[in-house]
């Protein structure tokens, strides 16, 4: 099953299990979403459970908050993460703070799904990875799956979670794992263990990282598309890297990260988002606080350059294997 189908299955299942679940967003209803993630859901569950909306991200999130306060569990889609900013105020000032400011009297269990990341020739407005600007906001959880298995399990967990969740979908992984090389033929999810998705209900708990590959020489901390790039890079370099998929950006599974770096003594962070003040900075800050005396080399970051995502330079911009390999070498040599 690919990631689109896995996400679709999660919503289908939750719409069926819980009458409070509703799905809303631009083009998600009749059409089934520009990436087909909600395909067939309106036909099956009806126009009053799967709603097309105006092109108004702020309005969508605000309405979802109101619905949640009235007992529903809205799953709102923002068509691209690049278009989530008009909803930023409702997310930061309202969704994230409602439980706190009302001392628990009110809460809004809203899930906001949105495709993120580059690699699909989307240019600067269809490629962004805005996790850091949500990670800094207290009161919302932020997750990003790297496989169809995690996508389904995490989305069910997000919908069931009583706190709001920003659910970031690395769109380059929708149809298959991607190792960062755009010239190789695309690989379908059927070739990857993460593409095995059980029928029916299961959850992947929010707040737990996954050790994708155990290793001893260096820890690579990553999430989303970059997990696969990192795996390929480590493989090509033949290094015994421990590769961790963060999965849950908030809350962060610090224990898993710290235990790994304490063991390996070396650490590399890899994400697609721009580097400066990106989430990689928090990972470094936390890990050096916890593992300073274990560290044998500075922690490095491989990340998007500090520029918008440029259409023509997609593959110079995308932090591909070559850059991961170069950084890995530095981390292994201790500069």
């Amino acid at each position: 099953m690919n990631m689109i189908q896995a996400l679709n299955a999660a919503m289908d299942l939750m719409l069926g299990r819980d009458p409070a679940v509703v799905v809303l967003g631009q083009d998600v209803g009749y059409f089934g979403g520009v990436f087909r993630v909600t395909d067939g859901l309106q036909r099956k569950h009806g126009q009053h459970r799967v709603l097309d909306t105006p092109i108004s991200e702020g309005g969508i999130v605000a309405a979802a908050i109101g619905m949640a306060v009235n007992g529903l569990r809205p799953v709102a889609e923002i068509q691209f993460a690049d278009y989530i900013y008009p909803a930023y105020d409702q997310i930061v000032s309202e969704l994230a703070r409602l439980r706190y400011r009302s001392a628990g009297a009110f809460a809004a269990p809203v899930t906001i799904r949105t495709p993120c990341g580059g690699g699909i020739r989307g240019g600067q407005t269809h490629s962004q990875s805005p996790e850091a600007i949500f990670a800094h906001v207290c009161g919302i959880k932020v997750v990003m799956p790297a496989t169809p298995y995690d996508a389904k399990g995490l989305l069910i967990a997000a919908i069931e979670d009583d706190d709001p969740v920003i659910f970031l979908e690395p769109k380059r992984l929708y149809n298959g794992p991607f190792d960062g090389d755009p010239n190789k033929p695309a690989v379908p999810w059927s070739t990857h263990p993460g593409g095995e998705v059980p029928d029916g209900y299961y959850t992947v708990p929010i707040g737990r990282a996954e050790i994708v590959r155990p290793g001893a020489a260096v820890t690579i901390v990553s999430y989303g598309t970059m997990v696969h790039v990192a795996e390929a890079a480590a493989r090509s370099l033949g290094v015994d890297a421990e590769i961790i998929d963060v999965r849950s950006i908030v809350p962060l599974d610090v224990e898993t990260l710290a235990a790994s770096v304490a063991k390996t003594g070396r650490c590399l962070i890899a994400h697609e988002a721009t580097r400066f003040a990106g989430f990689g900075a928090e990972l470094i800050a936390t890990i050096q606080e916890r593992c300073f005396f274990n560290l044998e080399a500075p922690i490095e970051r491989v990340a998007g350059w500090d520029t918008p995502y440029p259409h023509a330079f997609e593959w110079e911009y995308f932090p591909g294997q070559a850059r991961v390999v170069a950084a890995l070498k530095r981390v292994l040599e201790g500069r």
Partner: protein
Amino acid sequence: MPRRSRLHVPRAPARPGEAPDFSYVRLSAAGAVARPDVGSPAADIENLSVELIRVLDDQHRAVGAWNPHLDVDTLQVGLRHMLLTRVFDDRMVRTQRQGKISFYMKSTGEEAVAVAAGLALRPNDMLFPSYRQQGLQFVRGARLVDLMCQLLSNTHDMCKGRQLPVMYHSVPGRLFSISGNLATQFPQAVGWAMAAAIKGEDDLAASWIGEGSSAEADFHHALLFASVYGAPVILNVVNNQWAISTFQGYAGGEQRSFAARGPAYGMPGLRVDGNDFLAVYAATAWAAERARKGAGATLIELVTYRAAAHSTSDDPTRYRPKEDYERWPLGDPVERLKQHLIAQGEWSEQRHAALSTELEQQVAAAWTEAASYGTLTEGPRLDRDLMFEDVFKELPGHLAEQREQLRRERG
């Protein structure tokens, strides 16, 4: 600059030192506006967004088609809530001046907006107020002590010390948590109403924002979503002429009424005398009936005046004539309802004075109790561990650590 600026700059009708000027307020005579059927298409009743719905005339009689024909009991209850609002507001500003609370916002002159609307709705209807509808709290049965404890951020504070004063809420009272961010509740109310419709329930939502706040994006989101989905919601714009120092012309009120935005989005817009208890009641009841019938949302502009300072941090003499409110053509809402009752022989100056005294005593007694639970500076204090709770439903690891750290570092 090469040439003379051609930018239009709205002008406040009068600034300090100038004579008050309310000639810009378009009035209708009491009883002059027709009351259409609640099912009327929005396009057929656009006049309601231009005229001014009024019931109480200059002789304190209730006149015209919008007269809600309320029984004396309801009128007296309304008067009591309005007077309580005023007494409470006055007293709380005094406590702020004494340094007992950090901040306060009065609703003086606007009591009818909240109280009459609150009484016209059903207890199950969900209310999404701004910070200036404290009357709704009284209508929905809030205890004075509870409100005061919120103002004091003390050990009995419903917000556990987390919010500025006046940012109340009530689950049993169906009063949504008030936000410091303007207008955000407006589209949330629409979402709540959409959910009620999806669930097939009869309850509706109502929300209030200031005319200044209608400039925010969320005003547009609210009207649009309410219109598209025919949501059972009442969207109230309280046009009290001022947004801190900024005159309502800066929110677009110079060109057109705020009510006129309703028809543009396909819903009725009612322009209502906000200082007329009966008119506010009648307009709200009309919109509620319409919403419950499935005919969707209504925008109501309540024309009123912010008689007091914006907040205890504000000094309005810097930007408007001192005697502005005395010349306000729609009078005082408490006084007008009082005179209406007196005119009917159902009230008197004596009874009014007695009620005033009774309410003052009530407020004073509540204050004594509330302050005993702690103030910002004295008495028992909230457990500071509460600072870390309710960020999430369950305390995550990093917040548990920070709580420990605070204990370690601050003893």
